[in-house]
């Protein structure tokens, strides 16, 4: 398994498309930062509009923390979309080039082969997220400086810089769980569909429907809490005044369960199916 995993990682970083994905993430990050900077003032004016009669404000709210928070919001759609396209490509390209067959002609078990794929998908996702998170913090603080973070969630909440930083880091950690879920799902879709374009379309559809269902009221407490679309925005809870750690932990574990389930489904189908 370690050998398979190391060759997976070696090949991932020898492919041009990996670098296209990294560049895409950077471009996305830059666009989000620029639009965050341009929109940030407008958002702040809206947030503070009704307080301007009563108060004068001292200090800069359009700072690195707000920019990082706005980049974090890109977790809603953009980052998972890029991740799903790239991660599903790890397998669909092998089906297309028939290298799945070539590897399985060697003394390699199907379980280990597909297991290594899932591991590589998780590691690659973690790498991309680390890259995104580190560069976001770095650029945001370097360019926009430090300061209080204001967010609108159950009212306007202000967090002091060290508090904002720790909440943002935890939110990124929690959001990363969601990204890993999407990565695993996309690989399972690749196992099921095998063909790149079909997998991309279904993955994008999955993401779209999940995002829509997040806001949908199922009329049942259980579904509204534990159906997987409802677990994809757990990271938002890090910005409640009182962080509901227990709920975050429970939801994260349930989402982890969904990820494991998706992976098991993919592994089972891959093992059961003939390589034709």
């Amino acid at each position, binding site marked *: 398994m370690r050998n398979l995993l190391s060759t997976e990682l070696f090949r991932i970083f020898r492919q041009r498309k990996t670098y296209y994905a990294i560049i895409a993430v950077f471009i996305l990050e830059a666009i989000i930062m620029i639009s965050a900077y341009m929109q940030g003032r407008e*958002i702040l004016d*809206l*947030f503070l*509009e*009704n*307080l301007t*009669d*009563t*108060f*004068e*404000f*001292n*200090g*800069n*709210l359009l700072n690195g923390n707000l920019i990082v928070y706005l980049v974090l919001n890109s977790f809603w759609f953009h980052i998972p979309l890029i991740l799903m396209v790239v991660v599903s490509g790890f397998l669909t390209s092998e089906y297309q080039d028939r290298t799945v067959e070539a590897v399985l002609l060697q003394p390699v078990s199907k379980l280990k082969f597909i297991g290594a794929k899932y591991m590589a998908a998780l590691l690659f996702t973690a790498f991309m997220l680390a890259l995104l998170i580190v560069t976001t913090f770095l650029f945001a603080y370097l360019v926009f400086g430090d*300061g*209080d973070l*204001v*967010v*609108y*969630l*159950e*009212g*306007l*909440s*202000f*967090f*002091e*810089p060290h*508090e904002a930083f720790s909440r943002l880091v935890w939110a990124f950690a929690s959001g990363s769980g969601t990204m890993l879920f999407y990565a695993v799902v996309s690989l399972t879709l690749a196992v099921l569909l095998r063909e790149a374009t079909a997998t991309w379309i279904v993955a994008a559809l999955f993401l779209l429907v999940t995002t829509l269902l997040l*806001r949908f*009221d199922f009329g049942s407490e259980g579904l509204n809490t534990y159906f997987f679309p409802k677990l994809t*925005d757990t990271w*938002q809870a890090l*910005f409640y*005044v009182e962080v509901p750690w227990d709920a975050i932990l429970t939801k994260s574990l349930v989402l982890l369960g969904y990820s494991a389930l998706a992976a098991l489904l993919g592994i089972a189908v891959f093992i059961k199916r003939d390589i034709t």
Partner: protein
Amino acid sequence: MRYFLLLIGTLGMAAAMQAQDIDPVLTQVKARLDSIAGFEVTVQMEVDIRYVNMPVKTAELSYQQGNSVRIRSEDFVMIPKRGLDFGLGELYKYPFMTLNLGEVEFQGRPCELVKVIPTTDASDYSIATLWIDSQRRRIAKSQISTKKNGTFDINYAYKAPKDVLPEGITVNFQVADIRIPLRFLGREAQVDKGQLKADPGQKGAIRLLFSEYRISR
């Protein structure tokens, strides 16, 4: 001719009132405050508005007679537009007259209730009511109705009977509720919509706690 005399007389009386009718209690307080050339103080600010969650902030406040106060803070702070008029400079900025409504009791202390009415349109408040502790010659409470920014209700707390500078100020005000377009909302989008419409305004307060006055006289 008779009317003309009447007019002159009325105008003269009005001018005389302007000159004389600043309540002596207020004048005494102003004189006490004017003895302070300036000061610096550490202030803790606690915002109490239903939809604002803000930790208690600390800032350095400096006041120089004749200037408005300056606030320095590492953090983002919200400074009330009224309530920091330590030298009563804002009340005294434009001509006004006062009307003493007599003695009332406020928080167990006898106070003179003094209305301050601006006599020009330039002033940015329409009326101010002061509860002045006549024995201790300091303001216990004020209520300022501004022309643009609503009414501010300000309570003063003092450490020692002789103090003229407050240890704490609570500013109460009316504030409109927040309206955020849907696209900026997170998961709370569906929760507050009805409430927002039904609740056009609400009371808010900010509590300021002063410590370590460094006074220059």
